[in-house]
């Protein structure tokens, strides 16, 4: 079980694909103008990650290592096509909103990175779980960034939720304040970069705080030992 806990911690925090590995920044920065767009792309990426990790793990002993990269790419491309067609069928408006960034999931380095670094060396179950957790970490960052930019930029939250969840979600969007003149910087690409920088800074700050706490804890332990010896 502890292996799975490790995998979850790696994906969500310590080795988060967006905040630490800085992979897949292009879709991350481009589609996070709203929470729902972020969630949609995050879910699509997660689905592709799980599928490709499972498949790569299954074929890892059959594929020779010289040709593994083309094989991985084809597996990923197949899953992206599946997701794209599914979104086209069931969430057509979101499909239109995300546009080119759905097929571009193929180029998300986080996916081929996990296929190469983890799935090709582990059995199916851990590989699937790793895909799920890496995808969840990526989705969480997409949603957080999307939320920040949406609230600052247009004063709403969850706008367009019905595009993803269907007519049930028509009442979900929250109007936090009405902006006669939207704060364009937050919606435009520079806002995505600044927001991303702030998120990374916040994560590093939390990590540093935890590290200093741990350091003081160990320091106390040594001090006790010194007094005991003397």
């Amino acid at each position, binding site marked *: 079980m502890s292996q799975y806990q490790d995998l979850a911690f790696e994906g969500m925090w310590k080795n988060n694909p967006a905040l630490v590995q800085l992979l897949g920044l292009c879709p991350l920065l481009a589609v996070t103008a709203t929470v729902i767009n972020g969630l949609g792309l995050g879910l699509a990426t997660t689905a592709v990650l799980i599928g490709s990790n499972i498949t790569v793990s299954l074929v890892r002993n059959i594929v020779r290592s010289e040709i593994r990269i083309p094989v991985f790419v084809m597996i990923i491309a197949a899953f992206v096509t599946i997701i794209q067609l599914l979104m086209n069928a069931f969430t057509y408006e979101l499909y239109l909103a995300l546009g080119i960034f759905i097929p571009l999931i193929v180029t998300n380095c986080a996916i081929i990175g996990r296929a190469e670094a983890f799935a090709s060396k582990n059995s199916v179950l851990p590989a699937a779980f790793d895909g799920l957790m890496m995808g969840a970490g990526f989705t969480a960052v997409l949603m957080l960034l999307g939320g920040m930019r949406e609230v600052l930029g247009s004063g709403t939250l969850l706008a367009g939720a019905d595009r993803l969840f269907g007519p049930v979600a028509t009442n979900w969007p929250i109007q936090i304040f009405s902006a006669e*003149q*939207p*704060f*364009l*910087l*937050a919606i*435009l690409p*520079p806002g995505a970069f*600044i927001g991303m920088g702030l998120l990374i800074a916040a994560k590093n700050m939390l990590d540093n705080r935890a590290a200093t706490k741990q350091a003081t804890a160990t320091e106390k332990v040594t001090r006790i030992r010194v007094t005991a010896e003397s």
Partner: protein
Amino acid sequence: MKLYLSSSPHQRVKRDTSQVMRLVIYAMLPAMILQIVLFGWGLVFQAGIAVLTAVLTEGGILLLRQKRVERSLADFSAVLTALLLAVSLPPTLPWWMTVIGTFSAIAIAKQLYGGLGFNMFNPAMIGYVVLLISFPVAMTMWLPPVAMMADPLTFSDTARLIFTGYTSAGFDITQIRSVSDGVTMATPLDAVKTGLAEGRTYSEALTQDIFTGAFASSAGAGWAWLSLAYLAGGLGLLALRVINWHIPVAMIASVALVSGLLHISDMDYYASPLFHLVNGSVLIGAFFIATDPVSASTTNRGRLIFGAAIGFWIVIIRTFGGYPDAVAFAVIIMNMAVPLIDYYTRPRTYGHGRKKSQAQKR
């Protein structure tokens, strides 16, 4: 004759940071007073809001960073940034936009990079660009000079307009701007840009109301006098040796040269050098903004390159870009190039040979 022995440093520091900053602020005062006379009370409020926000933001972040708050606040750099931003803003901008701009300038452009002395970009210009990109409509809503308005805004009406968005009579900024005989007033840069876009020639664009009453046909009334006031303040700073001559001279010469070449190539389409120099913020930029000792180049040759490149970008962006004025963009672009400029213009160390190539090969 007595000879003293003393340890280094032998050169006495003539002024500390706070004195330099205060001198720059004093040099801005005549132009600020002129702006209040020509364009109404708005600047009083903008300066107040900006200074208050800047001091609060700087103090708050210094507390968070566990630095000495009083000492950093006493250097007046935050006040100067706030004032530089305030004079660039339209005088009747809604108060919360000024707060956002000043906060971005101090918090993001200055303190996140490490505070005074570490900021890569000119904080005031970052604040201005944040606002210009976010609220392009509000940021171009300049009221015409008081003398041109049928019904100039009173002190209390200006306050109402800034804080609530409406005057006591219930007019908002768009309505006030078009009150004077139903024609909307634009800044001179705007007027010429839209005039050219509508297919008129440069000299036809100069016949609009905004250009009457100035000292030259291509100088916008009000704006040109303001620029001259900044020129006077800047010359004062030069005389007191607060700033070096390299950046302002290079920048003004470069604006004149580039716009002059364009003007000669097609007089109907490209504005004259005088128009470029006295309208917008070239002169305040040359003396007060580009000379920021932190974000500008630090070598004399580098300063010449830095200033000349800013002048080049100003004319290019004004003429071919989407925004009417370009000083802020030009300064920020060249701020990015400063490390490179400084690297290639390092002065020769005394005593080391001029044959650079040999020295480097070794």
